Every structure is written in structure tokens, then in C-alpha cells.
């Protein structure tokens, strides 16, 4: 049993970088149960470009209004083909549940006449348990 558990852990750890590295942000959907006044989500933004890019993480509500969440880190440089974890802690604000969008944003080629900002947003639902 212990051996099987070790095998499962090894498989999970081995799969994590592959899953994270192949996407611009993962996961893009999630539901979280929390027994506190906030819920936490860990996302993995990834840089699919062959160059270093500046990445910003923002949290919005369903109407795309900013949510006062703690994001660690919220702005960072990400190397080519790299991925890194970002921890987002969202307060319930007195509600029993909260739907938020966690978005990875970047402008890969700044200082051009018409810039394109790529935004990948995941939808997450936090449930407050008592």
C-alpha cells in the first residue's frame, strides 16, 4: 500500500511540469471548498513564446470588475517555454460562494501601433463551508 502511494505521488509529481508547461495557464476551471473566509487557487501561467515576456495576473468578478485578491506574484518575467506557480487567495467578502476569473495577461510585442494583449482567463468557483 505504501509502495503504491509512493508510486502515485511520483507519477503525479512527474506529470505536473508537463501539464503546466504545455499551456498558457492551467487549470482553466475549478471549484474549491474552504472552511475559512477566503479560498486559494494555484495556477500555472506558461510562456509559449521563444522570448522572455512580462506576465501579469489579475482577478476579476463575473462582470470583469477587479477583485481584491492576494496574488503571489502578480507581475513577473517568464522565460521562454517556462511556467511557474502563482498563488491566488480570494476573500469571500461575506458571501457563501464566489465566482471569479483569474487571468494571465501579456503584451508580447509592446511599443507597436496596434498591440495585441493576450488574455487567458480561468473560471473558478469558491464554496464556503461552515
Amino acid at each position, binding site marked *: 500500500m505504501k509502495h503504491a502511494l509512493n508510486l502515485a505521488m511520483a507519477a503525479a509529481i512527474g506529470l505536473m511540469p508537463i501539464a503546466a508547461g504545455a499551456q498558457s495557464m492551467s487549470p482553466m476551471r475549478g471549484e474549491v471548498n474552504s472552511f475559512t473566509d477566503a479560498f486559494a487557487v494555484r495556477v500555472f501561467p506558461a510562456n509559449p513564446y521563444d522570448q522572455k515576456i512580462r506576465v501579469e495576473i489579475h482577478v476579476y468578478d463575473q462582470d470583469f470588475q477587479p477583485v481584491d485578491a492576494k496574488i503571489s506574484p502578480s507581475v513577473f518575467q517568464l522565460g521562454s517555454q517556462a511556467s511557474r506557480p502563482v498563488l491566488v487567495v480570494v476573500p469571500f467578502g461575506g458571501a457563501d460562494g464566489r465566482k471569479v476569473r483569474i487571468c494571465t495577461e501579456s503584451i508580447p510585442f509592446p511599443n507597436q*501601433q496596434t498591440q495585441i494583449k493576450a488574455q487567458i482567463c480561468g473560471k473558478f468557483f469558491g464554496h464556503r463551508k461552515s
Partner: protein
Amino acid sequence: MPLFRTAFGAALLVACLDDAAMATTQNVIFNGTVTATCTLVVATNGTMTASPDLQSLSSHNSGGSAGTATLTTTGGVSLSVDPVTLTTVPAADSTATTWTPTYSASGTHTIAETGASTALTVPGADLVSVHLAGTKGGSNRFATGNYQATVTLRCE
């Protein structure tokens, strides 16, 4: 006697290598989960040019070009553009401009040019073209100088 022992040992060894033991197999199970994902890779930014009457500054005009991005998704996501909020205009331009971002896509999904959200239900890859048009009404005209605008292309 030694010969007998050797022969007996060899016979025992051959007996141990029976067909049943040779044919034993064990399945190794592989599991994998692919969740809804979307990757946007911006390839080129766009270029806007002015119309002869100077009331349009657009990537659709002659000499203008769309921005492009490649999209790869598992499906179960939607693609959209945001209203333009980040613009830089020359000081000589003091009149209002209406900015209209649109996009189209070709590849797995065929999306005619639109400014609305489009659901991408099936997995695949697409080339997304992003256009931006600025217009002025009445007697207003675009002025000499550099204009810059940012279009947000969203996959969620």
C-alpha cells in the same frame, strides 16, 4: 553418479522453463486527464492607416494590416475581444474617436469577422486575425502624429 546429478539438474531446469511461466504478462495502466485549455500566441501586431478623408484609421484601410495570433484549444472555451481602453493619440487630436476591435479565425474553427464572443466547442488550432478601426464623425479628422491602441484578445 555425478553424470546422473548433472542430467537430473538439467532436466529440472528445463522443466522450470515451462510455457506458462514464459507467457505471463502484466498490464501497465496509463491514465491521463486533459482539462479545458487555451493557448494564445501573438504572431504579429497590426498596422492602421488613414483613409483619404481622414475620418477612418483602420487596419482595413489600404496599407493596413491585421494583427495575428495562433490559438490552440481543447474546446469548451470562448474567444472574444474587449472594448479598446488603452490608446495614445497625438496632442493635435482633441476630438473623440470610436474604436471598434474585431476578429476572425480560420482553421479548425471558421469565424467570420465579429466583435462578439464566440464559443469554441471542439478542439483544434486556428489563425486569428485581429482588426481595429477608429472612426471620427462630423467634421472631425485624424491629426498628424502617432496613434497607438491595445486590443485585448481573450480566451476563457
